[in-house]
């Protein structure tokens, strides 16, 4: 599913990623941990093609992301669900409009799309706010909308960056249960988090980054 070969990303002062190599198979659930600034977000960005590594190669679903032409990237991203730390929502559009967008882009029929959106909004507990603009929502609510949008098109791969940072304990448990259900349905998950409870509860393979290096890779398959 995902293979990184000696991937490095340097900035003027420091290396955000330094010779990172690992492989994630289809259907795995991998938790990415590490202190602040370890390179977790950079690693995810490199995988979905928002950053190009300085050295190394990345294969995602057998496509070389670093070499992918700009026009191919949208099609790659449609197979992924992405949750970022800074909620990337269109603030002037409603909750429904935001969540339905990936389906519109893929040309899903309107009735089918509506059903799926209502399902995921219910799963994250936000179905009662469908017609509110996301710009006025609370941080936790926005975070849940992002999760809903990432899973609405049943992605093959889910990349989530600290998806429970603004959620209380009870909601965190709910979201983790949701992710586990999605994983059980066959979605490969790569989840970056600081929350020790989430790490324990997800009970998957853990990759621990520190200053751009992989220092722990529990349960690596190779």
């Amino acid at each position, binding site marked *: 599913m995902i293979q990184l070969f000696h991937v490095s990303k340097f900035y003027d002062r420091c290396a955000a990623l330094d010779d990172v190599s690992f492989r994630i198979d289809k259907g795995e659930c991998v938790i990415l941990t590490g202190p602040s600034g370890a390179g977790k977000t950079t690693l995810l960005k490199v995988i979905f093609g928002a950053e190009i590594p300085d050295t190394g190669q990345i294969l995602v679903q057998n496509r070389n992301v670093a070499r992918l032409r700009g*026009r191919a990237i*949208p099609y790659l991203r449609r197979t*992924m669900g*992405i949750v970022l730390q800074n909620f*990337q929502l269109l603030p002037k559009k409603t909750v429904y409009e935001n969540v339905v*967008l*990936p389906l519109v*882009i*893929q040309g899903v029929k309107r009735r089918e799309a509506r059903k799926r959106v209502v399902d995921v909004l219910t799963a994250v507990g936000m179905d009662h706010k469908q017609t509110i603009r996301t710009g006025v929502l609370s941080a936790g609510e926005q975070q849940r909308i992002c999760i809903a949008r990432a899973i609405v098109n049943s992605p093959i791969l889910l990349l989530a960056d600290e998806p429970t940072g603004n959620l209380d304990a009870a909601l965190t448990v709910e979201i983790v249960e949701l992710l586990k259900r999605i994983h059980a349905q066959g979605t490969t998950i790569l989840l970056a988090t600081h929350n020790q409870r989430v790490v324990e509860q997800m009970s998957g393979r853990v990759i621990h980054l520190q200053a751009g290096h992989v220092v722990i890779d529990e349960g690596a398959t190779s």
Partner: protein
Amino acid sequence: MRPLYLLREAMTNLRVHRGNVLIGIVTTAFTLVCFGVFVLLYLNLKNLTGTLQGDIEVVVYLDPGASEQVMSLVQKRLRTEPAAVALTFVSKEQALREFAEQFPEESLLLEGMDGNPLPASVVISLSPRFLDTESLGAFAERVKQLPGVTHVAYSQDWIDTLTLVVSYFELGAVVIGTILAVSTVTIIANTIRLSLYTRKEEIEILRLIGATGAFIAIPYVIEGTILGAVGGGLSLAVLKGIVEFFRLELSASGWFMGVEHMLPVFPKQVSFLLVMTGMLLGCGSSVLSVFGLMKVRN
């Protein structure tokens, strides 16, 4: 579902960003008004110099003793000249009447004279194509050779002046017109570009969830095209208003009675040009801006 979605998206954008859109429309309209004022001034002045050029005449004086036959022969020959677009024969009697009318002062002179000393003549209106000094000189030389012609008169000065004024005017039109056209394009493109800059994040988010360039760009381009077309239409209305105002003003003055063609005109092509320019600029600028904003990989 998607084409409809993109169109609806454009409409929503127009509504949501109505502040920016209004600014864009107003800027487009005003810029096109500036350009339009210039184009109309040019067309109307050109119209006017055309009228003036029609006024330039060459007078061929005929031998006072020439027979009727000779005179009609001269006229026949003159009709074959491509430079001559219209001929008017002025008899001796007519010449005397006109002289008395034109110079009441000096006409006292004629009272003391016996007979009519003024010659008959043929007045030739010239085609504007032959208005430069050289071809005119050659033409006059040719005409002078005809039997029965005593000499040929035309106002060298006036023709030189008009030739110069017209060429000065054309040069000015090209220089200023070019600058204004470049300004128009730049201003409209810049306005649309600036109004898209405020939506940079929107574009990034759409990229994140796998929207293709076309999917992102089309609503913006529709938006820009509508904006440009509305701006063009608005400028059309303003310019029409100005021209109508002058037409009324001048008709009321009564001065141009019967000379309707000297009233300011507003050619249909200009209307078309304005709206099309607005639309094309709106469309083109948004295409450039949106793809400019998408170039950054993220």
